[in-house]
């Protein structure tokens, strides 16, 4: 029934360890009694905490996903030559495969300035983030393979733009299990239902337990985003009464069936659900935060409220041991037109909240072992689209940045050509990013494999190199 072949073969073979920690759902609960009674060697707790391959620098990841594809040349990849050559034709070839017809070079409508001791260039639309540049690791040579949103999202999240594959968070949960057994280990807040939808947080052929748990979706305000089925009509007291009878019936049943770890697990899963139902809303109840914290995240301003809440939730879930937390700034960055207004508005919505998150994580000592990761599914063309006020998709170059979690601060890695069209120096493919993130989490991307349909799959397929230059 279980065709799982875990990478950590010692662990699965060690029956005693497995059964001691065998349980259900989000929890690793010692079911010692099971050791005596266990009848079927098949049930394992998919989510019990597991040791990494080697010492990890990061314990958790917060991915700030900018859906739509932010423009590198309007945010962090300053290109003076592009500013000079506005409206001139691109002096080299455009890619063989493009999404749409584009025109001449288009200078950024934004001013850039240097910040911090590192003198990093940041566009005027990120005034808050600019204060953090010395803590950030910029990777300016990120590239993917596909120029369409759906394929690019899937490649970014799962490593494949062609097939349904497990998502990065699923691989991490598969590799490392869950810290807090009362909460899911992998959360995605307000994810988009399009462009791959649930495949972007799905577990594909990995066991379903490794799939991300969505809180709401792109159509939900973040303050209303909830775990599915977390609340129903039944009152707590009545539900407790129900669970007590259910427990009795299920335990009585065990005396008829004989020992069965799966039945045991199911008994436990209801208790876990009951605890989860209490804990998750507590994490999401931000009313216990100080007023200045709420205003730091911009939660009392309309423009920044939604992403501010997402960022604050990220910190609260991170504090409670959730391993992979993805936030989505939903499909707004796709500026085929109206670049100036669009990017200004988008940056305004996320700049202060993200800055607050970094500050907050740092002052709580969480930044050290939390990897914060910012980026979109692709960059944009330095040439114009439409009536010279927008940019098309560009998988050949985008800028991402990281903070904390064992990344080397104040680094500018890789470079694009003089206009920012192609990554040219120290190119970093999505596969390389995945390998590096797994590495920070203590996992060797070549060893984290899963046997499915006759072959061992891994997140990075046959590719991916850890970018050691990025590591602190």
């Amino acid at each position: 029934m279980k065709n799982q072949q875990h990478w950590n073969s010692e662990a699965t073979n060690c029956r005693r360890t497995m059964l001691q920690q065998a349980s259900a759902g989000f929890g690793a609960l010692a079911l010692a009694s099971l050791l005596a009674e266990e009848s079927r060697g098949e049930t394992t707790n998919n989510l019990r905490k597991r040791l990494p391959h080697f010492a990890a620098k990061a314990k958790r990841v917060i991915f700030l996903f900018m859906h739509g594809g932010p423009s590198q040349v309007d945010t962090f990849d300053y290109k003076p030559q592009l500013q000079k050559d506005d409206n001139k034709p691109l002096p080299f070839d455009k890619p063989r495969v493009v999404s749409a017809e584009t025109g001449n070079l288009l200078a950024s409508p934004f001013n850039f300035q240097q910040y911090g001791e590192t003198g990093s260039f940041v566009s005027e639309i990120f005034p808050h983030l600019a204060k953090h540049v010395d803590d950030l690791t910029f990777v300016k040579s990120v590239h993917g393979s596909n120029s369409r949103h759906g394929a690019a999202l899937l490649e970014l999240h799962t490593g494949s733009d062609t097939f349904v594959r497990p998502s990065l968070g699923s691989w991490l949960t598969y590799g490392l299990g869950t810290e807090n057994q009362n909460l899911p280990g992998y959360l995605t807040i307000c994810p988009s239902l399009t462009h791959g939808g649930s495949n972007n947080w799905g577990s594909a052929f990995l066991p379903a337990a490794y799939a991300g748990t969505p809180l709401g979706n792109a159509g939900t305000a973040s303050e209303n985003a909830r775990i599915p089925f977390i609340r129903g009509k039944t009152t707590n007291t009545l539900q407790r009464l129900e669970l007590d009878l259910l427990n009795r019936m299920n335990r009585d049943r065990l005396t008829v069936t004989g020992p069965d770890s799966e039945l045991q697990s199911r008994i436990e899963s209801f208790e876990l659900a009951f605890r989860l139902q209490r804990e998750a809303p507590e994490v999401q109840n931000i009313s216990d935060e100080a007023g200045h914290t709420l205003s730091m995240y911009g939660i009392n301003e309309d423009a920044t409220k939604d992403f501010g809440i997402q960022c604050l939730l990220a910190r609260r879930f991170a504090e409670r041991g959730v391993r992979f937390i993805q936030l989505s700034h939903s499909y707004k960055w796709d500026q085929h037109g109206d670049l100036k207004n669009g990017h200004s508005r988008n940056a305004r919505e996320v700049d202060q909240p993200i800055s607050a998150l970094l500050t907050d994580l740092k002052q709580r000592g969480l930044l050290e072992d939390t990897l914060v990761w910012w980026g979109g599914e692709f960059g944009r063309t330095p040439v114009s689209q439409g009536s010279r006020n927008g940019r098309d998709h560009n998988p050949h170059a985008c800028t991402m940045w990281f903070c904390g979690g064992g990344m080397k601060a104040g680094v500018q890695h890789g470079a694009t050509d003089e206009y920012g069209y192609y990554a040219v120096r120290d190119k970093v493919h999505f596969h390389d990013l995945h390998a590096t993130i797994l590495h920070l989490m203590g996992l060797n991307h070549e060893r984290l494999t899963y046997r499915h349909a006759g072959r061992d799959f891994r997140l990075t397929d046959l590719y991916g190199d850890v970018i050691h230059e990025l590591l602190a």
Partner: protein
Amino acid sequence: MVRLSEVLIVLIVFASFFTSTAAADEGDAAVSADKQVTAQQAAFFETKIRPVLVERCVGCHSGDDPESGLKLESREDLLRGGELGSTLVPGRPKQSFLISALKHDEFIKMPPKAKLPTQQVVDFTQWVQMGAPWPNSGIAMPAPKTNPEADTGQRFTAEQRGHWAFQPVAASSPPELTSDWPQSPIDAFILSQLNKANLQPAPPADRRTLIRRATFDLTGLPPTRAEVDAFLRDESSSAFAKVVDRLLASPRYGEKWGRHWLDVVRYADSNGLDENLSYANAFRYRDYVICAFNDDRPYDRFVQEQIAGDLLPEVNDERQNMDRYIATGFLAIGPKMLAEDDPMKMQMDIIDEQLSTLGQAFMGLTLGCARCHDHKFDPLPTEDYYSLAGILKSSKTMENHKVVAVWYERPLVSSDVTEQIASIDKAVADTNLRIEQLTNAQRERIRQQMQTEFGRYLLATAALDRFEKQTKTHRESVNAGNSPFAVHNGSVLFEAETFHRGNVERLTDGYGEGIGVIATRGAAYAEYDLHVDQAGQYALEIRHAAADSRPLNVIVNGKTVQKAVAGQVTGSWYPDTQRWFAAGQFDLAAGQNTLKLDSAKVYPHIDQLQLVYRGPEPWPFPAPPPMSLTQIAALHKVNPELSFVWREFLKQVAAGKLTEFPSFVTWQSFARLNDDTFARDASKVLNELSSTDGLGATTPSSLKIALLQATPQSLAEVASVYQQLLDTFTDQSNDDNVLKQEWYRLPSPLPGPSEIAPSMLPTEPRRELQALQDKLQQLTSSRPTYDVAMGVTEAAAEDLRVHLRGSHIALGKTVPRRFPRIISGVEKFPIAEHESGRLQLAKWLSSPQHPLTGRVLVNRVWHWRFGRGLSPTVDNFGLLGQPPTHPELLDWLTRRFLDSGGSIKQLHRLMMLSSTYQMSTQFSEASRKADPENKLLWRFRRRRLTAEEMRDSLIALGAGLKHRVGGSLLKVKNRGYVTVSGTNLTDEYQSLRRSVYLPVVRSAVYEVLQTFDFPDPAVAAGVRQTSTVAPQALMMMNSKLVDRQTLAMAQRLLALPSDSERITTAFEAALHRPPDVAEVESGRHFVRQAQRLTSATEQKADGDLLRAWQSYCRVLLSSNEFVYVE
């Protein structure tokens, strides 16, 4: 021989290239290097190049069958290149494929796994630059590893050839045993192995357990109380056989077992991944599968129909012929990335998906693994992959591979209807041709008109500009504090999204400021309440953007007054292409009126609307009446529609959005001036023109000179300067004129509009065009409607070239269409040149000699019945799969299955009427120790209900299932987006029909099913995982589904007279046994307590009895006893 001659040609071509280079460029490093290698160069090669070649390259690129036909053992090898062509151009690193591969710059990246250290790549580059000096050129590298089999001409190893699954199905017979346990030969096979392991089979299951098990297993539903009672009463020896026969005959059987097959063929109702569109016709394939199981279709026919149903000889039964087309949906319903900018990649990805599914479903072979390289474990060379891929390439799955791509669908019609359709299609084509001729002629006329009336259009545009300012002023002054919909002083301009009623979606985001409306699903409308001071005739104008034509109807006060307005295509959905269009005239009464814009389909993106008084009542206000845009155009004797085109163009120029039209910037400088003070202000403009800054610097000189000469005193005079200049262009001598180039550069309207609307035309052609369009509409509506099915058909037959490393732009040698060569002993059906080979593939697969097809199916059925396949890797019979625990049993069953003509129902009967199936799940510590995974079947496997069984049972016990075989619940129209926002087919999922009929949306599977391990519909899944996770418990505790169904169940229980009857009935329905005394007592106690708790919370005096019983039902339906089948 072919290869040798190819090599020779390459050599000759290269040699001639090389000599000519040498002749042309005496000093070239390449030449000197070829002549002699200096000691320094030799040292460089020996220390930096040769070691890398030996260590990193020749492992694959050497011997008789090198990777991609490329050997790297000598300089000649490099020069000769491989299937990809030349590898080395001495002296030219940039042209040397070797270097780009080492740099990992292009599609081919070598070495494949890890790039060489940068220094080594630099060394190679330098070496090529030197001219690739190779001491002792021609001497081979150290002997590489060669595949010994390759030398003897034997492609596969003995181990590969001897793999159990590739052997013919053996004629085994059951072991002779003395025990009386066996009822069937199956039992002899099972018992014999148990005996060998010193194990005893568990005792038989009791009758209640057995009927519950059999009913869930065969129909996916719980037995009714009456069915249980009847079985308990039947004391005949054939009692259970009767139950099995009854269940096999039930239509519910196909719904359960069809679903098993649908897992294998990754059935879904959308393509998933990127642009997630509705496969609204996929359900026909699903229904076909359900019916095939209900009809017990012979398996060989089932296989043939799904792969090549369209190619089977037609029979004298229309329904059956159509069924066969529908069956090929198997190949068509897979996941597809429909938004893929690279069409070649899209096509090969689709073929790969088809091949992977086909291989796993029918043969348990992971063919997909051989796409990029020879299969790592199985004897499936890449060549065999592309042989099969050629068959699918020669079949048509897609209409096109554009973004967003369109999949092929086959009409399901009889031949006479086909003829009727053909004649209508012919008439449509004729009409379209006539329309094209007419519009082409008119386009030419308009182009000429644009030239002769250039000045007039410029003047009209200036007037329109002034008018818009005026209207805005009207709106602002009149509507201050009032409704924007009150038409005072004759005109109103309003935003489209301010409608009062309607189902169109307001989009205020992503399209710039204040942009209008769009419908997302089906028929849409927007309705406005307008207050009009003055009765009379009004003109409506609409400003919209549209990439496709989406005409609307105008309905005033419930009456359609105008049809097909706002159908113009502007080029995109974005604001930069928005334009005004006249949308007709109609009468309004004084007072309240409603204006409705209505579409049977989707909406254009509308930004604003404008309504202007036109008469015929006398103008009642002191200020002069505002004119409509149309009126102004008429005043200037130009076509209103075309004047709008001009106006939008000039507006963009004025806004700086179009930068290559300086002469029109100059025009706008004049057009901005007031009539009263024109002469005075124009002189300022003329001054600027004569200077070297501003307009003087940008205005093309011919225009500048003409304007300065003319010193215009009115805007009309400026216009005539422009007109005169244009008139001189007709003179051939001015072809190079800068101004002319500017004026005829798109999007300037001077070359004429790309879309011709009837309103642009004079009366006669307009009438004709209108008539033609009406005829087109009438033809379209008279075209018989018919169902279509997703599926495949034949395409132009072609052999494929091997795609090196899976890349569609790195092509190797051509391979013929044929079948995997590792499978032997099956009749090979020859594929004619013009045929795809699908029919032959179908026959080959379904041949009784095929070692895999029958075994794989029998093993699947065993897995679904006993919870574990005889080979547990049901989708993988390759070398990495697990061999069967009972190989003789698998072969014996397969033989019986083939002999029965491939009857799956007989296979069920065979399996179920065995002691093995009828064992209990009784635990035995000793047996568990010996065989913890129960591989040898010492007891029956307990199993959890599947996702569908869970939901279906809840409904069966609650509100009741609505039974009907077939049909679609999906409300999203074909090719419409299935996941636009958070509203995820809510209505569809609330249906009370069985779960197999719920739409399966890829990338967004219904969460109730997903929670209970419904497989990802993107991949073939012969095995479903069973997870036990907290979200399942949450769903039982809190979901609406459980809430509704338990409430319905409680309502039925409450109708019974006593607590004990209620409890007994609930037990019999859910657990199929009566409660014992203690259970009745604890149930009563629970309900009393629960009632008190509800009263405490809901302020009801005597508590909520219904809710208390609902709680009780929830507990029963959450219990392990309900959720597991023993």
